[in-house]
């Protein structure tokens, strides 16, 4: 799966965002991370084929997440569903 990296000056945590290109809350997460200078990788699931969609589905379910977007995985262990600004601030220590 080819994710896109958005560089930022804060790369303390590894942030992976599963998103949809048309989704407003995914867009809000992207701007939130950018505005706070957080480096992150993202993958717009709707722009990819069956194979990648299955990989994302499997990854989210394996981590016990709900299958909705945005889903943010921090440091490969913490999964956050939806745009939860307070939670993101807490986990990303910003």
């Amino acid at each position, binding site marked *: 799966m080819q994710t896109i990296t958005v560089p930022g000056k804060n790369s303390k945590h590894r942030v992976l965002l599963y998103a949809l290109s048309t989704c407003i809350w995914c867009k809000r997460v992207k701007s939130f991370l950018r505005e706070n200078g957080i480096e992150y990788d993202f993958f717009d699931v709707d722009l990819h084929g069956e194979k990648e969609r299955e990989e994302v589905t499997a990854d989210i379910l*394996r981590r016990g997440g709900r299958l*909705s977007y945005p889903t943010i995985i921090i440091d490969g262990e913490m999964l956050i569903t939806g745009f939860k600004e307070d939670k993101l601030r807490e986990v990303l220590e910003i």
Partner: protein
Amino acid sequence: MTTLEEVRQRVESDAKSNGYYLNPDPEVLRHLLEGLRKNEERYDYPSCPCRLAFESFELDRDIICPCDYRDPDVDEYGSCYCSLFVSKDVFEGKIPLKPIPERRPNEKQIGPHIKSAKAFTKTTAVKATASIRKSSERGMKLFYCRQCGYVCFREEPPYLCPICKAKRELFAEVTIS
């Protein structure tokens, strides 16, 4: 091809006839309308911009905008899942606009994209596929609203009657003998 203006008009008139308002932030509104336009272009129907479509009308029917979850969501939270449709209080800023939880059942979100996920969610997967298969085998039913007489043909009655806003419990199945 549907234009952004056509999508806007359709959504505006739907909001008006249902007593809803559209997202007060012009940037957010434009993004959502553009999402609906894009989905209509790529899938042939305007499925929800904030949910992943399966590109199958049967599987996506409940998330074609306005989705099945809009009325109960605006009723309970003052906004639909995408925040396209909002209540008067939210529109006027009396209630803040916040992300709301997903009402669509997880099984519907999983759908057929399950092959590789099988190992982790075997039971959910089996259940989800079974319920999809069962519904298409069973076919759809006719339901009527006991309050206003509205009739619909689908797998289950709506959460709220789109005409008189009666709750799901007020729906009964039409049986033709």
